[in-house]
Structures are given as structure tokens and as C-alpha cells.
């Protein structure tokens, strides 16, 4: 299992939820609510290198696009 912490100020929950849906085939993902961060627990279903980093990038992309729209 891999963990990544995403700051609530920069990564909105709706963007994370969207990413979790999109990644459901690649990994089983849980979101834990902490004080300033969301702790994302990623259990890969496939052998994907840098999965948590890719997930964080993906969430960032969604977050940015949501701000534009």
C-alpha cells in the first residue's frame, strides 16, 4: 500500500473523488481526513510504477481545470 498526503487548500475533495473513480481499475483507494491534509491510501491492482505520484498529478490536473471552469 502506498500513501500520499494532499493538502486540502490545493486539492479539493471533489477533485480527489473524481480521480478515485477514474483510477478504480488501477487501484483501490481510500481517503482519510486529517487536519490539513487528505491522506490517500492506494493499494495497486496492477503493477504500475509511480502510481501514487501519477494519482497526485491527476488530482492536480482536475483541480486546475475545475478552477478554470
Amino acid at each position: 500500500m502506498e500513501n500520499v498526503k494532499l493538502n486540502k487548500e490545493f486539492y479539493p475533495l471533489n477533485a480527489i473523488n473524481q480521480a478515485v473513480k477514474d483510477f478504480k481499475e488501477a487501484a483501490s483507494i481510500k481517503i482519510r481526513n486529517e487536519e490539513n491534509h487528505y491522506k490517500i491510501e492506494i493499494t495497486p491492482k496492477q503493477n504500475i510504477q509511480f502510481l501514487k505520484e501519477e494519482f497526485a498529478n491527476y488530482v492536480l490536473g482536475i483541480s486546475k481545470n475545475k478552477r478554470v471552469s
Partner: protein
Amino acid sequence: MSKISNLEIIKEDNKVIIKINPKIYPLEVVYSAAYVFLDKAYILIDGDPKKEIIVEAKPKEEKNLEYFGGEFNNELLNYLTYKNFSDKNKDIRTMIVQRALITGDPDVLDNKNSFDDEELDEETKKLLKELEDDDDDDFLDDPEGIAIPWEEKYGKESKKENKKPKVREDGKRKTK
């Protein structure tokens, strides 16, 4: 001479930390710059959007980390400049779009709700006045004669070149 830098290089983890002042580079500028690098690096944004934004960038390929951090700084500046110009020209863009969408309703032209002259700076007021005074009929000028129909332009000459043979009433061609 001291070196001013907002970069912290962590060679062991192959990543560079970029510290950003949100009073200089607003969050949307940071997002835009980070977005550009998503295919080249793994990006993580942390910190406090009011005090200091911290971007952790881990290049996907082997790269000079200081150079990479410098590139990110350049992109920040790029988007900041773009944002400043965009904000400055927002009113003019809105007016241009409104003019383009104007229907035959004269009330739209008279509607001052979208613009309050007191809010606009002098340069914007000047440009808006130029747009209002602009003679829209300029596009009707046709110095090259492109709009003239072909028949009107060449019709008489072509008639002279392509003379139809004169035919008598009995159907036989007339000779000279």
C-alpha cells in the same frame, strides 16, 4: 555575493523544492505553471496559500534539478505576466464580445450596466471611445474591386471576344 534562490535541491530523492510567495504569484498562476509540468515531472503542492506555497517537483527523467527548478520559475513568471495582461484587458475584451453579439436592439448599446466609467482607467476609456467612434462601414470599401461581380467587370469585354455567329432566319449562317 549571496545567491537568491527559492529552490532547494534534494539529490538523493531526485527532486527540487520550489518555494513561492503567494503575494507575488497567486495560486492560479502556480496551478497553471504546475499544470505545464505534469507530463515532465511528478508535482506536489503544499504549504499555506496565504504565506508560502511549496511545490515539490520530481522530474520523470534524469535532469539537472537546478535547471528544472529554474524552468519552473520561468513558467511562473510567464503565467503571471499573462494574468496581468488578461486582467488589464478584461473590460475591452468584454466590450468587443458584446459588440460582436449585438442584435438590432438599440437598448443593448445604451445599457451601461456592464461598464461603469468611473471604474475604468484612462487608457481603457480612451480605447473604448475609439471603438465607439470607429466607422464600421470601412469594410464596405473595396479598393481592389473584389466585390464587383464578374459579369459586370468583364461581361462587355467577353461579349466582344466570344461573338456568337449570326444566324439567318432560315438557320444558315450569315456571311460577311
